[in-house]
C-alpha cells in the first residue's frame, strides 16, 4: 500500500497531521484490544497514550519487511497494555496483603474469562481449550511455556491449540481483510 508508505515517511519527518491520520485509522481497533487486556476503559486510555507516544518515538525503528505498520502498532499497544495489567495485579497483591480491611477492594477480574474473547461467530468455532489458550496468550501475555505450566498440558499441545485457534480465526476474519 503506497499510501501507507507515504504516511510513514511523513511521520518520520515529524509531521503531526500524518500522525493524526494514523490515529483516526487505527485507534478504535487498538483501544478495543487494550481495554480488553486492562479490563478498564479509563486505564485503557492511559495505555493508549503511552503506546501512541512510543509509536511516535520509535517510528524510525519500524521495519516493513517484518510486517505491516498496523501489526507493529498492535504489538506495541498490546505489550504496553500487558505490562500495565501486570503492574496493576502486582500492586493489588501488595494491597491485599497489607490492608487489613480486605472488604473494600474492587475486584479487578484477575481470573481468566474464556467468554471475554467475544464475537458470536467465534463462540461456536473455537473449542473452550482453544479459547482459553488464546485468552492466556493474546490478552494476558503468557508464553507457551507459562501456559503449559499453568494448565498442566504439554508444550506441543499448546502449540497445536494455538495453531488450530488461529486457523479458525482466519476463517472468520478473511472477509474483514477487504475492509482494512
Amino acid at each position, binding site marked *: 500500500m503506497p499510501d501507507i508508505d507515504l504516511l510513514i515517511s511523513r511521520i*518520520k519527518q*515529524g509531521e*503531526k497531521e500524518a*500522525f*493524526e491520520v494514523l*490515529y*483516526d485509522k487505527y*485507534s*478504535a*481497533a487498538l*483501544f*478495543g*484490544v487494550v*481495554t480488553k487486556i486492562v479490563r478498564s*476503559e479509563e486505564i*485503557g*486510555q492511559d495505555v*493508549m*497514550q503511552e503506546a*501512541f*507516544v512510543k509509536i*511516535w*518515538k520509535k*517510528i*524510525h*525503528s519500524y521495519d516493513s*519487511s*517484518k*510486517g*505491516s505498520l*498496523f*501489526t507493529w502498532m*498492535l*504489538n506495541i499497544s498490546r*505489550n504496553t497494555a500487558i505490562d500495565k495489567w501486570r503492574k496493576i495485579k502486582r500492586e493489588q497483591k501488595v494491597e491485599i496483603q497489607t490492608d487489613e480491611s480486605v472488604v473494600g477492594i474492587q475486584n479487578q477480574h484477575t481470573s481468566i474469562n474464556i467468554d471475554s474473547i467475544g*464475537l458470536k461467530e467465534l463462540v461456536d468455532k473455537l473449542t473452550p481449550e482453544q479459547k482459553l489458550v488464546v485468552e492466556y*496468550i*493474546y490478552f494476558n*501475555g*503468557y*508464553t*507457551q*511455556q507459562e*501456559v503449559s505450566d499453568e494448565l498442566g498440558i504439554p508444550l506441543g499441545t499448546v*502449540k*497445536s491449540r*494455538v*495453531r488450530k*485457534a*488461529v*486457523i479458525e*480465526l*482466519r476463517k*472468520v*476474519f*478473511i472477509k*474483514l*481483510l477487504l*475492509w*482494512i
Partner: protein
Amino acid sequence: MDLGIYISSGVLENYVLGSVSDQERREVECLSSIYPEIKEELIRLQQTMEGFAMANALEPPPGLKASILEAIDGVEQETGREDENKELKVIHRAPEATGRSIPAYWRTAAAASIILLIGAIFLWQSTIGELNNTRTQLSDLTNSKQNLENRIAELESENEESEYLNTLLADNATKRVAMPGTDNSPESFVSVFWNTESEEVFLKVTDLPVPTEDKQYQLWAIVEGQPQDMGVFELDLASESLQAMPYKVKNADAFAITLEPKGGSESPTLSAMYVLGNA
C-alpha cells in the same frame, strides 16, 4: 528443508500471538526472510490478527486524540542506528563531555550540516569583506570536520583484534554475518566474514560445543533457498584469528552451521543445526 512441517508446527501462529521464545522469534524472522512461503504465511497470520483486532474495535472517547497529540509535542523521535548490514566499523566511541553517546556517523553528519548551513549563509553575503570572513569560517569548519574524521580513523585503527581482521573489515566489500545459536545450542555464536567482491568466506567461532571424534562442523551458505556446501572446519577455540573456508559464494541469503559426520555431508542435517544467521 521441509517447509510444510515448519509451517504446520504452530510456531508461526505463536510468533504472531507473541508467545515465542527469543530464539524461536529470531528463527522465524530469519527463515521468513529466506523462504517466501514462510513470509507469505506469516503475513496472512498477521492479517488474521489485524482482522481480529478490528472486529473487537471500541471507539475511544473523543478527548483522547487531543491529549495524545499534546503528549507527543516536543517528544523527539529516536532516529535509526547505523544500518547493521553495512560492514562492521571497529570504532571506539570518543569519551563524551555529556552523558549521551552519539554515533560517529551522526557527529560527522552534524558537522556536515553545519558546513551546509554556513554555505547557505555564504550565498547571501554581498560585500567581499563579509565574503572573505565567511570563507574563513567555512575553511575553519572544514578543518574541524577533517579533524573529526581523522580522529575517527585514528580510533578505528587503534582497536585491533588482529591485523588481518582489521584489513578484512576495512574492505568495503566485507559483510559480517552474525550467527546466534539455535534451540539445539542456544549458547553458540559464530561470525562469518564474507567478502562480497572476492566471494571469499571467513569464520570466527566465538562459541561452539566441542564435537566428538567422529563428527565435524560444516558451514552452509543458503543461496536462493538452497543450501550450498562451504566446507568443513576444525574447532580451534584457543586461536583468535579467522579461518578461511575452502569454497566461495556469490549470493548468499544466510549462513548456517550443522554438525555432520567427519568429512562432511552432501546436504545439511537440519536437526543438527547449531547456528544460523541472515546475510
